[in-house]
């Protein structure tokens, strides 16, 4: 039995922390204090992996089947352990309570949007992108932001997160939602000179 727990790099290039090689890490702990540590470690792991792979959604289903985006962290074949759906469900609910994730769509608990950037951080990324690609003062559709011809840090961003980010920019007069023929668009303005 290996007694040394080491970090491990998975094929996607992500470095798993040593605790991922500890068999009991995958079991939901009956001691609340211990489980708090486990939950915190899983939360950090999920968010940093999501950021690494640019993943926005996580579903309980990801722990029920193989072949999904999350196998590299939800499973550890080297020690034959996996995160059980019930345990994942518990971790996700804890993340939602800390506003590190939100149930999407609402009124269900099997799928979440992950908040690996705060709305304020997304807002800066968004404004930076609009500025650097010369798209200030023009009207952009949500689709153009989410699926840009040239991949951007915002590629694939879900509408609710995008909407939050625009909301943040709107407060400082740097963006405005505009109704257009087939839905909604947004116009960005330069940072007001200070």
């Amino acid at each position, binding site marked *: 039995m290996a007694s040394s727990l080491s*970090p491990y790099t998975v094929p996607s290039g992500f470095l798993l922390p040593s605790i991922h090689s500890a*068999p*009991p890490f*995958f*079991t939901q*702990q*009956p001691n609340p*204090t*211990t489980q708090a540590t486990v939950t915190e470690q899983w939360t950090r792991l999920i968010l940093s992996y999501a950021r690494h792979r640019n993943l926005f959604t996580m579903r309980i289903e990801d722990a029920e089947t193989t072949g999904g985006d999350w196998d590299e962290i939800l499973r550890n074949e080297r020690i034959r352990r*996996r995160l059980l759906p019930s345990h994942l469900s518990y971790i996700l609910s804890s993340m939602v309570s800390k506003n590190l994730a939100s149930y999407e769509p609402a009124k269900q608990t099997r799928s979440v949007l992950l908040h690996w950037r705060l709305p304020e951080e997304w807002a800066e990324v968004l404004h930076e992108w609009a500025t650097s690609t010369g798209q200030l003062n023009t009207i952009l559709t949500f689709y153009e932001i989410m699926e840009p011809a040239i991949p951007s840090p915002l590629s694939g961003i879900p509408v609710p997160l995008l909407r939050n980010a625009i909301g943040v920019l709107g407060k400082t007069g740097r963006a405005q939602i505009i109704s257009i023929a087939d839905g909604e668009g947004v116009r960005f303005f330069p940072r007001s000179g200070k």
Partner: protein
Amino acid sequence: MHRLGGVGLAAFDRQQASQRSFAALSTALSQAQVEHLHAQLEQFRAALTRFATHHRAAIRRVPRFRHEFQQMCAAIGVDPLAGPRRGGWWEDALGLGDWQSELGVQIVDVCVSTRARNGGLVELQELVRLVSKLRGVEGGVVTEEDVVRSIKALKPLGAGYEVIDVGDGRKMVRNVVKELDEDQMVVLALAQEQGGRVDEELFVRRKGWAPDRARAALQNMLLRDGTCWLDEQDGLDGTGRAYWIPAAMQWDE
């Protein structure tokens, strides 16, 4: 001209006289050297103290700066934490307290930051390794003995810091107010031998315990103390039940 030593009784006097003057000369010489060294040491001490006093706040506040300072001190063979034990003037310069209690602070640092995962039990060797890493000074500076002495100094604080001999020469450091009963000592010793993983059957087979006794000891550690973690995916079919004692596992960070 006569022979240097001469002959007869007078020669003894002469020889003794010259020995005395040689001795006096050599004393004077070494005295001068010692004084010179003292002066140099004084200068060096003043410079180092000035530096330490000047940057005192930064040394105490900025971990990176503290680390660099410790590295510098290690390079010139001075222990930045040395207090009364060697020297004694550091305490005035840095206000860091003596070397031993400073080491104590580092021990507490390590214990507190690993407590969440080990429930307040850490293997002595592992603690020495982590403290040495924290100090960033080349190996051999902190020994098990140093750590044990510092832990003894922490005892009056009543936070439960204590070195526990779990048998077979294995030592663990407890850093929570929690009594360990004899059965838990046996669990810890066996867990260390097994690399952290134990199950009830192990104690029945190796120690002749009744299954209930093994279960009770492990459940106490699991539910009451948080010194052990449960694994429900043990065994070939992945549904077995095993217990892992983090304090007995080697964590590479």
